[in-house]
């Protein structure tokens, strides 16, 4: 567990360093250049989400849990732009206040997945032969289960709740990351610049730290951004099944689940949380691809 956190932290640090450099040099000079409309929209939406996550009171001043039975099941209107739910709670306020929780689960799960994947991938790629073989077979077994099934299995053993749901999603995404990182590491390890460093008389440790790890972990920023969208969907799916956050907590998956009963009469109760899940996933993917493209061109 603590290993996981350390690795997650490492991956995060690598990602941060990468962003820092990117923002300073490339994005600065290229911002006036070709930035597509979708990218601007996605960035705008993510900014809104971040604001909602860190200061929900700013975007939606009300109380997400305040009940007002007289105003139950109101369709979207000027007073309640997303409508109200069965207890008269404002759906817009709840969706906004739920952002923090949903993003937290998505980001944490991705970091866990990336961290675990990085550890497995690097161990397999570096130690080679028997370890590589064992890790690969293990990954293949995990790949045999659909990711969500793996997460369900984990929750069955450790019980439902937001923390286990996060861990479960992280674990379920780890094999994919491990595969990618191992492949990246193997190709970097046999690259011409690593051989050039050997010819210069560099020690194995120094080559590993200076060349192999940074070049292996560089794509993690892109992988992570792309992964957050998926993780949020999975986390929402688990909450929808009642295995993550529980109503009346303002969490998107849980809200979707609660609105399911009233789908015929009050579709807005599930539509808007669902819309946010979808928009978040799309925005994360659009931004991830944009970063990937810029890194490749640079």
């Amino acid at each position, binding site marked *: 567990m603590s290993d996981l956190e350390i690795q997650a932290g490492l991956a995060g640090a690598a990602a941060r360093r990468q962003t820092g450099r990117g923002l300073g040099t490339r994005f600065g000079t290229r911002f006036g250049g070709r930035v597509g409309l979708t990218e601007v929209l996605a960035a705008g939406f993510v900014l809104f989400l971040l604001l909602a996550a860190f200061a929900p009171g700013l975007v939606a001043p009300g109380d997400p849990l305040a009940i007002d039975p007289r105003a139950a099941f109101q369709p979207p209107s000027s007073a309640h732009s997303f409508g109200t739910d069965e207890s008269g709670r404002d759906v817009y306020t709840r969706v906004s206040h739920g952002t923090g929780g949903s993003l937290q689960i998505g980001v944490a799960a991705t970091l866990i997945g990336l961290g675990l994947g990085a550890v497995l991938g690097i161990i397999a790629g570096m130690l080679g032969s028997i370890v590589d073989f064992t890790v690969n077979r293990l990954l293949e077994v995990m790949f045999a289960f659909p990711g969500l099934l793996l997460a369900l299995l984990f929750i069955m053993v450790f019980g439902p709740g937001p923390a286990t749901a996060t861990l479960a999603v992280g674990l379920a995404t780890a094999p994919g990351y491990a595969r990618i990182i191992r492949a990246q590491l193997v190709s970097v390890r046999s690259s*011409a*610049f690593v051989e*050039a460093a050997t010819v210069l*008389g560099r020690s194995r440790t120094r080559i590993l730290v200076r*060349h192999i790890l940074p*070049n292996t972990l560089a794509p993690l920023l892109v992988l992570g951004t792309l992964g957050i969208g998926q993780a949020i969907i999975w986390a929402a799916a688990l909450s929808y099944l009642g295995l993550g956050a529980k109503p009346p907590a303002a969490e998107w998956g849980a809200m979707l689940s609660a609105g399911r009963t009233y789908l015929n009469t009050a579709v807005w109760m599930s539509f808007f949380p669902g819309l946010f899940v979808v928009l978040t996933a799309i925005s994360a993917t659009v931004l991830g691809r944009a970063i990937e493209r810029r890194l490749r061109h640079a």
Partner: protein
Amino acid sequence: MTGARADAGAPALLVRGLSVGFGSKPGRDPLVDDVSLEVAPGECLAIVGESGSGKSLTARSLLGLAGTGSWLHADELSVGGTSVLGLSENAWRRRRGRDVGLVLQDALVSLDPLRPIGREIGDTLRLHTNLSAAARARRVLELLAEVGLPDGELRAGQRSGELSGGQRQRALIASAIALRPPLLIADEPTTALDVTVQARILDLFEALLHAGTALVLISHDLAVVSRIADRVAVMSGGRIVETGTTRALLDDPRHDETRRMIAAVPAGQPRGARLSAQDRPNRPAPGVVPGAVPAAVPAVADRVVLEASGLVKSFRMPDRSRLFAVNDVSFTLDRGTTLGIVGESGSGKTTLARLLLALESPDAGEVRVLGETWTGITERARRPMRPALGAVYQDALASFDPRLTVGAVLRDAAGSADRSVELLDRVGLGAAVLGRRPLELSGGQRQRVGIARALAKRPQVLICDEPVSALDMTVQAQVLDLLDELQRDLGLSLVFISHDLGVVQHVSDRIVVIENGSVVETGPTEQVFAAPAHPYTRRLLDAVPRLPAP
């Protein structure tokens, strides 16, 4: 043959005042600037120039392939007497292959890897003629025979990946001439090929010329085109700076660019003669003494710096047989001299370089560096001796960590920032490149940085594996001059591995010729070139592109 399409006596290609560029404002910043050309049937015009001189864009514009976002202006642009200015994409498509054929440098990417080459060639016939499938198949076989690919039935069924580089290029030429276009445009058609294969492709072009095809041949190598071109146009900065018959241009070059290109051809230039113009005016020119031995001959005991004896390296093939990439190779390298190792692709040169650099361990035999055991020991034991040996690679870009700047690369290798600047100065680069990434540098600059890094640990021996084969002729000349200068100044010993016999002849004191992993001939350079003993060496020698004697 072309009678129905062209007026008798009309030039195969006539271009007047062609300008091409990219961007929204036609006429602004042209990359091809006011180019005029004329090619008669059966004539070969060569367009030579460095990368970025606009020669490829000129060639592509002649086929309406300048690219998206480009603008084109010309007073006249006609093929076979018919104007092709302002043709629609559909009209161009009907003309390409029929009126004008194109041969590109890299046949591997020009041919669909998933389709047999017979189908690829047959496609041209299917799209432009009414021949039946059986007639097309017969015609494909004829074409394959014509371009010198025997066993046509076998070849037609193979995919491009199953063919060698030369065979692929022939297949591509076959598809370009399938409809007998009166005009053929070839963009660096032999640049990726071995010299012997290159010679045969040029022979093939010559046969096509005799049959009346007009040829526009694009190349950066003046020696290659001088073999078959009737006239040469030299391009620089988008303009044609000089044009004339091949003979006149070589005998009496008027423009500096032409002189530079002629001087850059290494074959036949004596060892030590400079190939590039003095490109670093702030540094005193080293004494130019043709054929000079760089260093005084040291005592015999200290003479041999690198010794390979009985090296063998084999790889297991998928069918469990063993391929001997290096088979019983022995040689010695004397202090301060250059040993040239020549062979064609697949001859085991690169494996040999890797054995010398101890990146692979030999199955048998050993390497000694400065008299010390170098192979058969652990990397840890070898590490203290690593500084004695430096390496210069063909693909300089791939040999640098893509995340590091030039400064970081050199600091890693040399240990201090001061030394990095000193090294850059040594290879003729300023401190300004320190903050750049290798990707942002030109090919020649990258190779200079590669050489600077190789010098960082003050090595006594440099292993150079195809150090100039990815470079333009004039840049190649500069890098060869730099290596020569460094050898004199620092007393370096060089192992120079190359497929280019002309280059090796110019730089080497001794030569080792390898074929299929085995040494077929070895000796002092002059002796090997004057009287090659092995037929393979003779074949290589005959194929070397060189300027005709005045």
